[in-house]
Protein backbone atom coordinates (compact mmCIF):
# COMPACT_ATOMS: atom_id res chain seq x y z
CA UNK A 1 0.00 0.00 0.00
CA UNK A 2 1.14 3.54 -0.72
CA UNK A 3 1.55 5.62 2.30
CA UNK A 4 0.05 9.00 1.62
CA UNK A 5 1.95 11.72 3.38
CA UNK A 6 3.41 15.08 2.52
CA UNK A 7 7.05 15.12 1.56
CA UNK A 8 9.64 16.35 3.99
CA UNK A 9 12.04 18.76 2.32
CA UNK A 10 15.11 20.32 3.92
CA UNK A 11 16.26 23.56 2.32
CA UNK A 12 19.80 24.64 3.19
CA UNK A 13 19.95 28.27 2.12
CA UNK A 14 21.25 31.41 3.80
CA UNK A 15 19.69 34.08 1.61
CA UNK A 16 16.17 34.93 2.91
CA UNK A 17 15.17 36.21 -0.55
CA UNK A 18 15.98 32.79 -2.00
CA UNK A 19 14.21 31.01 0.84
CA UNK A 20 11.14 33.13 0.05
CA UNK A 21 11.37 32.33 -3.64
CA UNK A 22 11.61 28.60 -3.02
CA UNK A 23 8.63 28.76 -0.66
CA UNK A 24 6.59 30.66 -3.24
CA UNK A 25 7.65 28.38 -6.05
CA UNK A 26 6.67 25.32 -3.99
CA UNK A 27 3.35 27.02 -3.31
CA UNK A 28 2.82 27.85 -7.01
CA UNK A 29 3.88 24.36 -8.01
CA UNK A 30 1.34 23.00 -5.50
CA UNK A 31 3.82 20.65 -3.95
CA UNK A 32 2.38 19.10 -0.83
CA UNK A 33 5.31 19.35 1.50
CA UNK A 34 6.76 20.33 4.76
CA UNK A 35 9.65 22.66 4.16
CA UNK A 36 12.30 23.10 6.84
CA UNK A 37 14.89 25.79 6.33
CA UNK A 38 18.37 25.94 7.86
CA UNK A 39 20.64 28.86 7.18
CA UNK A 40 24.14 27.41 7.25
CA UNK A 41 26.07 24.21 6.76
CA UNK A 42 26.69 23.50 10.43
CA UNK A 43 23.02 23.84 11.23
CA UNK A 44 22.24 21.53 8.33
CA UNK A 45 24.47 18.81 9.79
CA UNK A 46 22.99 19.30 13.28
CA UNK A 47 19.51 18.96 11.82
CA UNK A 48 20.33 15.86 9.79
CA UNK A 49 22.13 14.18 12.72
CA UNK A 50 19.34 15.27 15.07
CA UNK A 51 21.69 16.94 17.46
CA UNK A 52 20.80 19.49 20.15
CA UNK A 53 17.63 21.42 19.41
CA UNK A 54 17.01 19.21 16.40
CA UNK A 55 16.75 16.01 18.46
CA UNK A 56 13.20 15.48 17.26
CA UNK A 57 13.77 16.43 13.62
CA UNK A 58 12.32 14.25 10.89
CA UNK A 59 14.74 12.80 8.37
CA UNK A 60 13.99 14.61 5.10
CA UNK A 61 12.95 12.90 1.84
CA UNK A 62 14.91 15.42 -0.18
CA UNK A 63 17.63 17.97 0.52
CA UNK A 64 17.86 21.19 -1.50
CA UNK A 65 21.38 22.44 -0.96
CA UNK A 66 22.95 25.78 -1.82
CA UNK A 67 26.72 25.65 -2.35
CA UNK A 68 27.79 28.97 -0.91
CA UNK A 69 26.85 28.92 2.74
CA UNK A 70 28.23 30.54 5.88
CA UNK A 71 30.20 28.57 8.51
CA UNK A 72 30.34 25.32 6.53
CA UNK A 73 29.79 25.47 2.84
CA UNK A 74 27.50 23.31 0.76
CA UNK A 75 30.33 21.25 -0.74
CA UNK A 76 31.39 20.19 2.71
CA UNK A 77 27.79 19.43 3.75
CA UNK A 78 27.43 17.32 0.61
CA UNK A 79 30.65 15.44 1.35
CA UNK A 80 29.58 14.76 4.96
CA UNK A 81 26.08 13.61 4.01
CA UNK A 82 27.34 11.25 1.33
CA UNK A 83 29.96 9.82 3.69
CA UNK A 84 27.41 9.21 6.44
CA UNK A 85 26.03 5.68 6.53
CA UNK A 86 22.56 6.76 7.66
CA UNK A 87 22.25 9.92 5.53
CA UNK A 88 23.88 8.98 2.24
CA UNK A 89 20.68 7.62 0.68
CA UNK A 90 18.82 10.90 0.93
CA UNK A 91 18.74 12.53 -2.51
CA UNK A 92 20.63 15.83 -2.50
CA UNK A 93 19.68 18.41 -5.10
CA UNK A 94 22.33 21.10 -5.44
CA UNK A 95 20.49 24.35 -6.11
CA UNK A 96 22.91 27.18 -6.71
CA UNK A 97 23.70 30.27 -8.76
CA UNK A 98 27.07 28.91 -9.77
CA UNK A 99 27.26 27.65 -13.34
CA UNK A 100 31.02 27.09 -13.05
CA UNK A 101 32.15 23.81 -14.60
CA UNK A 102 34.38 23.05 -11.64
CA UNK A 103 31.46 23.35 -9.20
CA UNK A 104 29.27 21.05 -11.30
CA UNK A 105 32.10 18.53 -11.73
CA UNK A 106 33.03 18.60 -8.07
CA UNK A 107 29.43 18.31 -6.86
CA UNK A 108 28.77 15.15 -8.90
CA UNK A 109 32.13 13.86 -7.74
CA UNK A 110 30.78 14.17 -4.19
CA UNK A 111 27.74 12.13 -5.32
CA UNK A 112 25.21 14.95 -5.59
CA UNK A 113 22.02 13.45 -7.03
CA UNK A 114 21.51 16.37 -9.35
CA UNK A 115 22.77 19.88 -9.94
CA UNK A 116 20.51 22.79 -10.80
CA UNK A 117 21.41 26.41 -11.56
CA UNK A 118 18.91 28.87 -10.15
CA UNK A 119 17.26 30.61 -13.09
CA UNK A 120 16.69 34.35 -13.24
CA UNK A 121 13.16 33.87 -14.40
CA UNK A 122 10.60 33.06 -11.72
CA UNK A 123 8.35 31.12 -14.11
CA UNK A 124 11.28 28.88 -14.96
CA UNK A 125 12.01 28.41 -11.28
CA UNK A 126 8.44 27.27 -10.62
CA UNK A 127 8.74 24.77 -13.49
CA UNK A 128 12.01 23.48 -12.04
CA UNK A 129 10.53 23.05 -8.58
CA UNK A 130 7.55 21.34 -10.17
CA UNK A 131 9.69 18.85 -12.04
CA UNK A 132 11.84 18.26 -8.96
CA UNK A 133 8.72 17.39 -7.06
CA UNK A 134 7.28 15.14 -9.73
CA UNK A 135 10.58 13.35 -10.26
CA UNK A 136 12.00 12.96 -6.78
CA UNK A 137 8.76 12.71 -4.84
CA UNK A 138 6.58 10.71 -7.19
CA UNK A 139 8.41 9.16 -10.17
CA UNK A 140 11.30 7.61 -8.30
CA UNK A 141 11.08 5.00 -5.61
CA UNK A 142 12.96 6.31 -2.57
CA UNK A 143 14.69 4.00 -0.10
CA UNK A 144 12.78 3.04 3.04
CA UNK A 145 13.63 5.13 6.08
CA UNK A 146 14.83 2.12 7.99
CA UNK A 147 16.93 -0.71 6.60
CA UNK A 148 14.83 -3.65 5.39
CA UNK A 149 15.13 -6.69 7.62
Amino acid at each position, binding site marked *: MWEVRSAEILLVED*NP*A*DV*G*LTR*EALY*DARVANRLTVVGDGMEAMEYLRREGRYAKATVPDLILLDLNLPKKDGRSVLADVKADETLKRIPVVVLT*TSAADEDVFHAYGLHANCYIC*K*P*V*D*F*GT*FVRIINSLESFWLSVVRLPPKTPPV
Partner: protein
Amino acid sequence: MQAVESLRNADQNLSRLLEAAPDAMVVVDQAGKILLINAQTERLFGYRREELLGREIEALVPERFRAGHHAHRDGFARESHPRPMGAGLDLCGLHEDGHEFPVEISLSPLKTGSEVQIFSVIRDISAHKITEEQLARQARELAQSNTELEQFAYVASHDLQEPLRVISSYTQLLARRYKGQLDPKADEFIAFIVDGTMRMQRLIQDLLQYARIDKKEKTFSSMESQAALNQALAGLRSAIAAGQATVTSDPLPAVHGDELQLSQLFQNLIGNAIKYRGPDSPRIHVSALRDGSEWVFTVADNGIGIDPQFNEQIFEIFQRLHGMGEYEGTGIGLALCRKIVERHRGRIWVESEPGKGARFRFTLPAGAKQAQVEETASARRES
Protein backbone atom coordinates in the same frame (compact mmCIF):
# COMPACT_ATOMS: atom_id res chain seq x y z
CA MET B 1 108.78 59.85 -50.99
CA GLN B 2 105.21 60.51 -51.92
CA ALA B 3 104.35 56.88 -51.33
CA VAL B 4 105.70 57.07 -47.79
CA GLU B 5 103.74 60.28 -47.26
CA SER B 6 100.46 58.76 -48.40
CA LEU B 7 101.15 55.63 -46.35
CA ARG B 8 101.64 57.81 -43.29
CA ASN B 9 98.40 59.67 -44.09
CA ALA B 10 96.54 56.41 -44.41
CA ASP B 11 97.98 55.27 -41.11
CA GLN B 12 96.92 58.52 -39.42
CA ASN B 13 93.43 58.21 -40.87
CA LEU B 14 93.19 54.68 -39.59
CA SER B 15 94.25 55.61 -36.11
CA ARG B 16 91.88 58.61 -36.08
CA LEU B 17 89.10 56.24 -37.09
CA LEU B 18 90.07 53.89 -34.27
CA GLU B 19 90.10 56.73 -31.75
CA ALA B 20 86.75 58.12 -32.91
CA ALA B 21 84.99 54.73 -32.88
CA PRO B 22 81.99 54.55 -30.52
CA ASP B 23 83.02 51.05 -29.37
CA ALA B 24 86.01 50.06 -27.29
CA MET B 25 88.64 48.31 -29.39
CA VAL B 26 91.40 46.20 -27.96
CA VAL B 27 94.17 44.19 -29.63
CA VAL B 28 95.86 41.45 -27.61
CA ASP B 29 98.60 39.01 -28.48
CA GLN B 30 98.37 35.25 -28.18
CA ALA B 31 99.32 35.42 -24.51
CA GLY B 32 96.50 37.84 -23.87
CA LYS B 33 98.73 40.89 -23.38
CA ILE B 34 97.10 44.15 -24.40
CA LEU B 35 98.94 45.66 -27.36
CA LEU B 36 96.64 48.47 -28.36
CA ILE B 37 93.49 50.18 -27.15
CA ASN B 38 91.45 53.15 -28.35
CA ALA B 39 90.08 56.17 -26.47
CA GLN B 40 86.68 54.59 -25.95
CA THR B 41 88.35 51.72 -24.08
CA GLU B 42 89.80 54.25 -21.62
CA ARG B 43 86.39 55.84 -21.11
CA LEU B 44 84.49 52.58 -20.88
CA PHE B 45 86.78 50.82 -18.42
CA GLY B 46 88.07 53.91 -16.54
CA TYR B 47 91.78 53.27 -17.15
CA ARG B 48 94.42 55.45 -18.73
CA ARG B 49 96.02 53.92 -21.82
CA GLU B 50 99.41 53.40 -20.20
CA GLU B 51 97.79 51.53 -17.30
CA LEU B 52 96.42 48.89 -19.68
CA LEU B 53 99.07 48.44 -22.31
CA GLY B 54 101.11 45.31 -21.56
CA ARG B 55 98.60 43.98 -19.03
CA GLU B 56 96.61 40.79 -19.42
CA ILE B 57 93.19 41.32 -20.99
CA GLU B 58 91.66 39.50 -17.99
CA ALA B 59 92.07 42.78 -16.06
CA LEU B 60 88.92 43.90 -17.85
CA VAL B 61 87.02 40.70 -17.05
CA PRO B 62 85.17 40.16 -13.74
CA GLU B 63 87.02 37.78 -11.39
CA ARG B 64 84.51 34.94 -11.70
CA PHE B 65 84.85 34.73 -15.50
CA ARG B 66 88.64 34.95 -15.63
CA ALA B 67 89.52 31.24 -15.63
CA GLY B 68 86.95 30.52 -18.34
CA HIS B 69 88.11 33.50 -20.34
CA HIS B 70 91.67 32.19 -20.31
CA ALA B 71 90.59 28.85 -21.72
CA HIS B 72 88.40 30.41 -24.41
CA ARG B 73 91.19 32.75 -25.43
CA ASP B 74 93.51 29.81 -26.04
CA GLY B 75 90.81 28.08 -28.03
CA PHE B 76 90.20 31.14 -30.19
CA ALA B 77 93.89 31.54 -30.94
CA ARG B 78 94.07 27.96 -32.19
CA GLU B 79 90.99 28.08 -34.40
CA SER B 80 90.29 31.68 -35.12
CA HIS B 81 87.69 33.25 -37.35
CA PRO B 82 85.65 36.40 -36.76
CA ARG B 83 82.71 35.74 -34.47
CA PRO B 84 80.69 37.25 -31.64
CA MET B 85 81.95 36.16 -28.26
CA GLY B 86 79.90 33.97 -25.93
CA ALA B 87 76.82 33.81 -28.15
CA GLY B 88 73.71 33.57 -26.02
CA LEU B 89 75.61 34.43 -22.83
CA ASP B 90 75.39 37.61 -20.83
CA LEU B 91 78.89 39.09 -20.97
CA CYS B 92 80.23 41.57 -18.43
CA GLY B 93 83.01 44.10 -18.42
CA LEU B 94 84.87 45.13 -15.24
CA HIS B 95 85.43 48.84 -14.68
CA GLU B 96 88.51 50.14 -12.92
CA ASP B 97 86.34 51.15 -9.93
CA GLY B 98 85.11 47.56 -9.59
CA HIS B 99 81.59 47.84 -11.03
CA GLU B 100 80.43 45.55 -13.81
CA PHE B 101 78.48 46.42 -16.92
CA PRO B 102 76.88 44.35 -19.70
CA VAL B 103 78.79 44.19 -22.98
CA GLU B 104 78.65 42.67 -26.41
CA ILE B 105 81.99 41.56 -27.84
CA SER B 106 83.04 40.51 -31.32
CA LEU B 107 86.39 38.95 -32.01
CA SER B 108 88.54 38.81 -35.13
CA PRO B 109 91.93 37.23 -35.62
CA LEU B 110 94.70 39.51 -36.88
CA LYS B 111 97.46 37.53 -38.59
CA THR B 112 100.81 39.30 -38.41
CA GLY B 113 103.50 36.97 -39.68
CA SER B 114 103.56 33.84 -37.57
CA GLU B 115 101.81 35.57 -34.67
CA VAL B 116 97.99 35.67 -34.35
CA GLN B 117 96.70 38.69 -32.53
CA ILE B 118 93.09 39.06 -31.43
CA PHE B 119 91.15 42.16 -32.23
CA SER B 120 88.07 42.68 -30.07
CA VAL B 121 85.32 45.25 -30.34
CA ILE B 122 83.50 45.82 -27.06
CA ARG B 123 80.18 47.58 -26.91
CA ASP B 124 78.53 48.79 -23.72
CA ILE B 125 74.93 47.58 -23.83
CA SER B 126 73.82 48.95 -20.43
CA ALA B 127 71.26 51.28 -22.02
CA HIS B 128 70.11 48.45 -24.22
CA LYS B 129 69.71 46.15 -21.24
CA ILE B 130 67.81 48.75 -19.28
CA THR B 131 65.39 49.30 -22.16
CA GLU B 132 65.03 45.56 -22.57
CA GLU B 133 64.26 45.13 -18.88
CA GLN B 134 61.84 48.04 -18.94
CA LEU B 135 60.02 46.54 -21.91
CA ALA B 136 59.87 43.16 -20.25
CA ARG B 137 58.56 44.74 -17.06
CA GLN B 138 55.94 46.73 -18.93
CA ALA B 139 54.85 43.62 -20.79
CA ARG B 140 54.52 41.79 -17.47
CA GLU B 141 52.56 44.65 -15.93
CA LEU B 142 50.29 44.88 -18.94
CA ALA B 143 49.60 41.15 -18.90
CA GLN B 144 48.89 41.37 -15.18
CA SER B 145 46.51 44.29 -15.57
CA ASN B 146 44.77 42.55 -18.48
CA THR B 147 44.27 39.44 -16.41
CA GLU B 148 42.94 41.49 -13.53
CA LEU B 149 40.58 43.35 -15.84
CA GLU B 150 39.25 40.13 -17.29
CA GLN B 151 38.81 38.67 -13.85
CA PHE B 152 37.10 41.84 -12.74
CA ALA B 153 34.68 41.73 -15.67
CA TYR B 154 34.00 38.08 -15.01
CA VAL B 155 33.49 38.41 -11.28
CA ALA B 156 31.51 41.63 -11.61
CA SER B 157 29.14 40.20 -14.16
CA HIS B 158 28.76 36.96 -12.24
CA ASP B 159 28.12 38.72 -8.93
CA LEU B 160 25.81 41.25 -10.55
CA GLN B 161 23.56 38.42 -11.64
CA GLU B 162 22.89 37.46 -8.04
CA PRO B 163 20.92 40.52 -6.83
CA LEU B 164 19.42 40.87 -10.28
CA ARG B 165 17.94 37.40 -10.03
CA VAL B 166 16.30 38.36 -6.74
CA ILE B 167 14.86 41.58 -8.18
CA SER B 168 13.58 39.99 -11.34
CA SER B 169 12.18 36.90 -9.63
CA TYR B 170 10.26 38.91 -7.04
CA THR B 171 8.95 41.34 -9.63
CA GLN B 172 7.73 38.43 -11.71
CA LEU B 173 6.20 36.91 -8.62
CA LEU B 174 4.48 40.22 -7.96
CA ALA B 175 3.19 40.31 -11.54
CA ARG B 176 1.99 36.69 -11.32
CA ARG B 177 0.13 37.09 -8.06
CA TYR B 178 -1.21 40.61 -8.31
CA LYS B 179 -1.72 41.36 -11.98
CA GLY B 180 -5.06 43.08 -12.42
CA GLN B 181 -5.58 43.39 -8.67
CA LEU B 182 -3.70 46.69 -8.39
CA ASP B 183 -4.52 49.68 -10.61
CA PRO B 184 -3.43 49.75 -14.29
CA LYS B 185 -0.53 52.08 -13.44
CA ALA B 186 0.89 49.50 -11.06
CA ASP B 187 0.73 46.81 -13.75
CA GLU B 188 2.55 49.14 -16.12
CA PHE B 189 5.26 49.90 -13.55
CA ILE B 190 5.76 46.23 -12.87
CA ALA B 191 6.03 45.57 -16.60
CA PHE B 192 8.78 48.20 -16.84
CA ILE B 193 10.72 46.62 -13.99
CA VAL B 194 10.41 43.14 -15.48
CA ASP B 195 11.52 44.51 -18.84
CA GLY B 196 14.46 46.41 -17.31
CA THR B 197 15.71 43.44 -15.35
CA MET B 198 15.50 41.20 -18.40
CA ARG B 199 17.53 43.68 -20.42
CA MET B 200 20.09 43.92 -17.66
CA GLN B 201 20.28 40.17 -17.50
CA ARG B 202 20.98 39.95 -21.21
CA LEU B 203 23.60 42.66 -20.85
CA ILE B 204 25.35 40.80 -18.06
CA GLN B 205 25.26 37.54 -19.98
CA ASP B 206 26.74 39.22 -23.05
CA LEU B 207 29.44 40.84 -20.91
CA LEU B 208 30.22 37.49 -19.35
CA GLN B 209 30.55 35.97 -22.79
CA TYR B 210 32.78 38.86 -23.86
CA ALA B 211 35.00 38.47 -20.80
CA ARG B 212 35.19 34.70 -21.30
CA ILE B 213 36.68 35.04 -24.79
CA ASP B 214 40.02 35.96 -23.22
CA LYS B 215 39.63 33.92 -20.09
CA LYS B 216 39.38 30.76 -22.12
CA GLU B 217 42.67 29.08 -22.90
CA LYS B 218 43.63 29.21 -26.52
CA THR B 219 42.50 25.92 -27.98
CA PHE B 220 42.96 26.56 -31.67
CA SER B 221 43.16 23.69 -34.09
CA SER B 222 42.47 23.00 -37.71
CA MET B 223 38.69 22.80 -37.97
CA GLU B 224 35.92 22.98 -40.54
CA SER B 225 34.31 26.41 -40.56
CA GLN B 226 31.21 24.71 -41.95
CA ALA B 227 30.77 22.97 -38.57
CA ALA B 228 30.88 26.34 -36.79
CA LEU B 229 28.30 27.74 -39.21
CA ASN B 230 26.02 24.73 -38.72
CA GLN B 231 26.24 25.15 -34.97
CA ALA B 232 25.38 28.85 -35.33
CA LEU B 233 22.39 28.04 -37.54
CA ALA B 234 21.13 25.53 -35.00
CA GLY B 235 21.31 28.25 -32.34
CA LEU B 236 19.44 30.65 -34.62
CA ARG B 237 16.72 28.21 -35.69
CA SER B 238 13.85 30.07 -34.04
CA ALA B 239 15.12 33.52 -35.14
CA ILE B 240 15.44 32.27 -38.73
CA ALA B 241 11.94 30.82 -38.65
CA ALA B 242 10.40 33.89 -37.02
CA GLY B 243 12.12 36.25 -39.46
CA GLN B 244 11.37 33.98 -42.45
CA ALA B 245 15.03 34.31 -43.31
CA THR B 246 16.95 32.27 -45.87
CA VAL B 247 20.58 31.48 -45.07
CA THR B 248 22.74 29.94 -47.79
CA SER B 249 26.46 29.22 -47.98
CA ASP B 250 29.21 28.15 -50.37
CA PRO B 251 31.34 25.17 -49.34
CA LEU B 252 33.39 26.57 -46.46
CA PRO B 253 37.06 25.86 -45.85
CA ALA B 254 39.07 24.46 -42.96
CA VAL B 255 40.52 27.20 -40.78
CA HIS B 256 42.78 27.34 -37.76
CA GLY B 257 40.57 28.36 -34.86
CA ASP B 258 38.21 27.64 -31.99
CA GLU B 259 34.93 26.11 -33.11
CA LEU B 260 32.82 27.49 -30.27
CA GLN B 261 34.09 31.03 -30.78
CA LEU B 262 33.63 30.86 -34.54
CA SER B 263 30.08 29.64 -34.12
CA GLN B 264 29.48 32.63 -31.81
CA LEU B 265 30.92 34.83 -34.55
CA PHE B 266 28.59 33.42 -37.24
CA GLN B 267 25.65 33.49 -34.86
CA ASN B 268 26.17 37.18 -34.08
CA LEU B 269 26.65 38.22 -37.70
CA ILE B 270 23.72 36.20 -39.04
CA GLY B 271 21.57 37.17 -36.05
CA ASN B 272 22.29 40.83 -36.85
CA ALA B 273 21.45 40.31 -40.50
CA ILE B 274 18.05 38.96 -39.47
CA LYS B 275 17.47 41.68 -36.87
CA TYR B 276 18.38 44.58 -39.14
CA ARG B 277 16.25 43.33 -42.00
CA GLY B 278 14.92 45.43 -44.84
CA PRO B 279 11.43 45.37 -46.34
CA ASP B 280 12.06 42.00 -48.07
CA SER B 281 12.47 38.78 -46.13
CA PRO B 282 16.09 38.42 -45.08
CA ARG B 283 18.43 36.60 -47.46
CA ILE B 284 21.87 35.89 -46.03
CA HIS B 285 24.77 34.29 -47.85
CA VAL B 286 28.03 33.08 -46.32
CA SER B 287 31.09 32.60 -48.53
CA ALA B 288 34.87 32.42 -48.29
CA LEU B 289 37.73 33.31 -50.65
CA ARG B 290 41.35 32.31 -50.30
CA ASP B 291 43.85 35.17 -49.94
CA GLY B 292 47.41 33.97 -49.33
CA SER B 293 47.58 32.15 -46.00
CA GLU B 294 44.16 33.47 -45.00
CA TRP B 295 40.55 33.00 -45.87
CA VAL B 296 38.32 36.06 -46.30
CA PHE B 297 34.80 35.24 -45.18
CA THR B 298 31.78 37.27 -46.19
CA VAL B 299 28.37 37.34 -44.55
CA ALA B 300 26.20 39.27 -46.99
CA ASP B 301 22.60 40.35 -46.37
CA ASN B 302 19.82 42.37 -47.96
CA GLY B 303 19.01 44.31 -44.79
CA ILE B 304 18.85 48.01 -43.97
CA GLY B 305 22.61 48.49 -44.38
CA ILE B 306 24.87 50.83 -42.45
CA ASP B 307 25.94 54.37 -43.17
CA PRO B 308 29.70 54.09 -43.90
CA GLN B 309 30.45 56.82 -41.33
CA PHE B 310 29.65 54.23 -38.64
CA ASN B 311 31.87 51.51 -40.14
CA GLU B 312 34.33 51.66 -37.25
CA GLN B 313 32.01 52.64 -34.44
CA ILE B 314 29.78 49.59 -34.73
CA PHE B 315 32.62 47.33 -33.60
CA GLU B 316 33.14 49.28 -30.36
CA ILE B 317 31.59 47.83 -27.22
CA PHE B 318 28.25 49.40 -26.14
CA GLN B 319 27.97 51.36 -29.38
CA ARG B 320 24.47 51.25 -30.78
CA LEU B 321 23.10 53.12 -33.76
CA HIS B 322 19.46 52.64 -32.87
CA GLY B 323 17.22 53.61 -30.00
CA MET B 324 16.08 51.04 -27.48
CA GLY B 325 12.58 50.88 -28.93
CA GLU B 326 13.69 50.20 -32.51
CA TYR B 327 15.96 47.18 -32.15
CA GLU B 328 16.79 45.06 -29.15
CA GLY B 329 20.39 44.56 -28.20
CA THR B 330 23.13 45.34 -25.76
CA GLY B 331 25.79 46.75 -28.09
CA ILE B 332 28.17 43.91 -27.35
CA GLY B 333 27.55 41.61 -30.33
CA LEU B 334 29.89 43.16 -32.89
CA ALA B 335 32.50 43.99 -30.24
CA LEU B 336 32.45 40.29 -29.40
CA CYS B 337 32.83 39.46 -33.11
CA ARG B 338 35.85 41.72 -33.37
CA LYS B 339 37.41 40.25 -30.25
CA ILE B 340 36.94 36.72 -31.57
CA VAL B 341 38.39 37.58 -34.99
CA GLU B 342 41.35 39.46 -33.49
CA ARG B 343 42.09 36.55 -31.18
CA HIS B 344 42.39 34.51 -34.36
CA ARG B 345 44.80 37.16 -35.70
CA GLY B 346 42.27 38.23 -38.28
CA ARG B 347 40.53 41.48 -39.22
CA ILE B 348 36.84 42.30 -39.46
CA TRP B 349 35.18 45.10 -41.35
CA VAL B 350 31.93 46.00 -43.03
CA GLU B 351 31.09 47.17 -46.53
CA SER B 352 27.66 48.69 -46.80
CA GLU B 353 25.39 51.49 -47.83
CA PRO B 354 22.06 52.38 -46.24
CA GLY B 355 19.27 50.46 -47.89
CA LYS B 356 21.61 48.25 -49.87
CA GLY B 357 22.40 45.50 -47.43
CA ALA B 358 25.66 44.88 -45.62
CA ARG B 359 28.63 42.62 -46.26
CA PHE B 360 30.52 41.78 -43.11
CA ARG B 361 33.96 40.46 -43.97
CA PHE B 362 36.54 38.87 -41.73
CA THR B 363 39.76 36.97 -42.20
CA LEU B 364 40.86 33.76 -40.52
CA PRO B 365 44.12 31.83 -40.83
CA ALA B 366 43.76 28.85 -43.15
CA GLY B 367 43.77 25.40 -41.59
CA ALA B 368 44.86 22.05 -43.01
CA LYS B 369 42.99 20.39 -45.88
CA GLN B 370 42.53 23.70 -47.66
CA ALA B 371 43.67 22.26 -51.00
CA GLN B 372 40.76 19.88 -51.08
CA VAL B 373 38.23 22.65 -50.49
CA GLU B 374 39.85 24.83 -53.11
CA GLU B 375 39.46 21.99 -55.55
CA THR B 376 35.77 21.58 -54.80
CA ALA B 377 35.27 25.33 -54.98
CA SER B 378 36.92 25.59 -58.39
CA ALA B 379 35.10 22.49 -59.60
CA ARG B 380 31.87 24.21 -58.66
CA ARG B 381 32.83 27.34 -60.53
CA GLU B 382 33.54 25.29 -63.64
CA SER B 383 30.30 23.35 -63.55
